[in-house]
Each structure stands twice: as C-alpha cells, then as structure tokens.
C-alpha cells in the first residue's frame, strides 16, 4: 500500500491527499497517491521529470479534476472547488514556469494579489525580497528568472496563505538565489505550510521535514525524519 493511502486524516493535518488518481485524457498520470501535511511543515515531493509532481500540485490547486480520490484541508474537501476558490481559502499555487503578468508592473502584480486577498501590507514581502522594492515600476516581462520567482512567491504570500504549493522553485536559478530562497522558505515555515516539488536535492534536504518519492505517478517512499532526508537517499527517486 502506498504511504498515506487510504488512511483516515490525522487531526493535525492541514492538507491531506488520499487515493488520488489523475489522468490527461486516456493517459493516467497519478496512481493512488496519498500525502499528509501537518501545519508549518515543509513537505517536498521529489521525482524525475514526468513522475507526476506538477500534476499532483495542480490537482491540489484545483486546476486538474481528479478521476478519483480525496483532497482535503481540515474539514473542507477541495475536489470540485474552482481553483480561485481554493486560492481564496489560502492554498496558493506557485507554478513552475516563472511567468508573471508580463504587461503589468511589479507593483500592479502585487496589487492584483493584494486586492484578491485584501492584504495591502507589502512590508513582509519586501523584507524577504528587498530587491522587489527597487523593481516596483518595472514590467514583469523585463524581470530576470530570479526576480520573477521572488515576485511570484511575494505575491502568493499576500493574505498570509496557510499552504503554499511551490512547483520547482529553484529550477534555472543561480545558486545565490537558491540559497536566498532556502532562507526564505525556512523563515516562511514558521507561519506557513509549504509543499514543494523540487529536483534540487541540496535545497530539499536542507529544509524539508518530510519527503515523498514519486516514481511513474506513484508514491514509492516517504522519508519522515530528518535523519533519513539525505541527498544520497533522495537521489534514488530521481
């Protein structure tokens, strides 16, 4: 039986996925996937390209409709809710492609996030990412990959989300920015739960308190103690 599959939700869970099956047309991508995420935990999913990591996050975020299975946050069932309804509940998805609204400035991008979440306090965001302060009037299309990632994370932080679903945050970024993200994620986890999909094992092993190994759409391993979360162990699932 896959880890966490078919098990009743723990009372302390902020996000629970049970027996999730997802297909793209006739092609099945996720098979009976289960996750259990506690509040203020950093949970990482590692796996090769095509293992179904992004599909898992998109399904939680309401962007994909599962064939079967359950996704819940506390007492609320997420399957069947629209993606914007899930976002309003405080479960924010940060996609992999690092594309912000290119024709809008950084300020306008943040304003969009502020209006939706009714949170107009940007101090926390600029504390995490001081660089954004200098870029407020620059259009999204003229930002570097790292700056766009900062903006996407900063924008998602508005409204103090309870869960951040972050899809490959370190992909294509310079090591110095990845190091900065590592610190930011560490800080964020004091108040927010993070579910990361990532192939950067040093980052995962530095911050994650639980790691799921995904292979060909199935959860094949769960590393739940810090001692076992090591790059050489995680590498087996890449």
């Amino acid at each position, binding site marked *: 039986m896959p880890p966490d599959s078919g098990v009743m939700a723990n009372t302390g869970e902020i996000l629970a996925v049970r027996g999730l099956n997802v297909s793209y047309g006739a092609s099945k991508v996720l098979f009976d996937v289960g996750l259990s995420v506690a509040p203020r935990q950093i949970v990482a999913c590692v796996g090769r390209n095509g293992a179904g990591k992004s599909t898992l996050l998109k399904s939680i975020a309401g962007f994909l409709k599962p064939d079967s299975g359950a996704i819940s946050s506390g007492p609320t069932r997420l399957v069947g809710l629209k993606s914007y309804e899930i976002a309003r509940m405080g479960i924010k998805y940060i996609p992999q492609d690092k594309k912000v609204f290119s024709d809008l400035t950084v300020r306008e991008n943040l304003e969009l996030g502020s209006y939706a979440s009714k949170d107009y306090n940007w101090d926390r965001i600029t504390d995490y990412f001081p660089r954004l302060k200098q870029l407020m009037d620059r259009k999204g299309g003229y930002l570097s990959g790292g700056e766009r990632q900062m903006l996407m994370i900063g924008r*998602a932080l508005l409204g103090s989300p309870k869960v951040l679903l972050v899809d490959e945050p370190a992909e294509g970024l310079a090591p110095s920015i990845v190091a900065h993200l590592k610190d930011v994620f560490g800080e964020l986890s004091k108040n927010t739960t993070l579910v990361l999909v990532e192939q950067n094992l040093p980052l995962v092993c530095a911050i994650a308190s639980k790691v799921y190994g995904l292979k060909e759409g199935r959860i094949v391993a769960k590393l739940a103690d810090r001692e076992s979360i090591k790059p050489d162990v995680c590498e087996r699932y890449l």
Partner: protein
Amino acid sequence: MMNAIRWWWGLLLAFSLLAASRAFLPLPFVNEVVIFSIYTMGCSFLLGRVGFISFGQPAYLAAGAYGTAFYLFYFGTDPYVGILVGILSGLAVSGIVGPLFVRLRSDYFALVNLALAVIFYYLMQKVLADITKGDNGLWFLTRMSSTPVLDISTPSHFFVFAFLVALAVWAFYKYLDDSIFGACCLATKINEDKLEFLGYSNYRVRLLAFIIANTTTALAGALYAVYLGFVSPEITSPHRAPDPVVVTILGGTGTLYGPLVGAFAYTGMKDVISKLIGNWELFIGFLLVFIMLAGEKGIWGTLQPRLEKLFSGRKDRTAAGDGAEARR
C-alpha cells in the same frame, strides 16, 4: 502622480482638439466621429484589454438604437429618457448573452457574436417587422420633444451633448485602465490560469468586462438613434460587423486614444476617398494589411512613443517610467 496628471491633460487636449475641429469641419462629420469613437471604445477594450475579438458589435449597437427608437416611436418624446432606455436595453442584452458567450474561447466568441448580429438583423428586418417597420425603419425625428438647456434634437446641441458623453466615457475607461479591474482584464488576457491562482474568477472578470463594453456600444447606438431620428435594420447589418474592429486596429488596439484617432481616420477616409473612388472599402482593406505588416500598432500605437519622446525627451527615461507608460 505626474504621470496621471499628464494623462488627464492629454485627454483634455485630445478632446479640445475635437471640439476645435467643429469650427472647420462639417457638423455631421464630427458628430459621426464622436459617436463612432464611443462605438469603438467597447470593442477596443474587449480586444485590447480582455483579448476578445467581437464581430457582433452591431447587435449591441442595435440593442441600444432600437431601445431608444421603440421608446421614442411608441411611448414617449424625451430623447434623454430614450437614451437611458437604449443603455438599459444594451445592458439587458449583454447581461443575457454574456454568461453564455464569455465561457467561449476567443475565436468562437468572435463567431458567436457575429451570429448574434445576424440574428438581430433578421429579427429587426423580418420577424419583428410589425413593430420595427422592417426595412422602412422607425422614424421619430419630429416626435422628439425639445429639452431644456441642451436641446439634443438639434444637431449642434447634440454635438455638445455627445462630446460630453464621449469625454465621460473616456474618463471612465481611463479609470478602468488604472484600476485593479483593468489589471485583472489584462491578466486574464495574458494568462487566465495564473489569475485564478491568485483567487480571481476569470469568468466574472470577463463577464463584467463584456457587459461594460457592450453597454458602451449600446450607448453609441442610442446616440445614433437620437442623432438620426431614425433606426432601420441596416444598423445591425452583418456586413458592417467588422467596422469597429477595423477602427480599433486602425487607431491602435487597447490604447486610450486609439478609438478616437481610428474613428477620425476611418470616417475621414470614408468621406474623402468615397468621393474619389467608388470602392473605398478596398483602400481601407489595403491600409489594414499595411498596418498589420508594419507591426499591428495602428496609428496611435505608432505615434504614441514618438510623441512621448518629443514631450518628455530631455528627461532620463527610467525603467520605472517605461513600465508605467508602456501600458497606454
């Protein structure tokens, strides 16, 4: 702040020029430019901000025009009330079809709107001929009562009224452009999924944009009805469906002044060229092909960066300025 002041001054300058043009251009021409620019504003907003091309604008124009015409022909004589009825008619039609249409992809959206224009045409020409008087149309010019202060049943007073309405419409769209809603519209055009991830419903953003744009179109229809004192099915003729799209592209898609510039250029060319050659649409066709091949910016889209450079030339253009200004 300075940027905002500059744009408001720009708006006033543009409309001052339009008002001044009344001194040396024929009244019917400037009246048509003003109404056409309002007609195009909704189409430009849909295409430039939301990313929806609509070939069915004559349907919403007709909703406004016939709403006004029915009131003035059958029920009352006050043209202001007639215009209000026209606006409400457009609001009702877009409120009924909007929830269905905005779910469609942009290409199907264009076609379903064209289909609506065809439906309206045949409804007004044949199915409802008993009340629309078919091709003969509804004549109510002499039924309109004089109104105090601005007697809009007279062309010269109508120009002042239409001019003020156009100014208000422009100010409203300028406000929309700068608002969160304007940013949402642009965001849904750029990447609809990401807007949902922020907690917005694409459907609601598009529906509201659709209703606003087409109610503006209906307002233009109501103004046409009062100005001409006559409405016939020709106003919703499908072969005139591309007109607002052509004027939008000609002026500069999604730009604030594009509809005004486009309406001026289109109406001007139509008037001038049609006196020289019979098939003036042929010239417009070639011009559009040229504009597309030259970078799809339209007249205002091409002039704007040059004018900005001219007026703010000596200032160092920071990245900050680039970001804020390039939206216009």
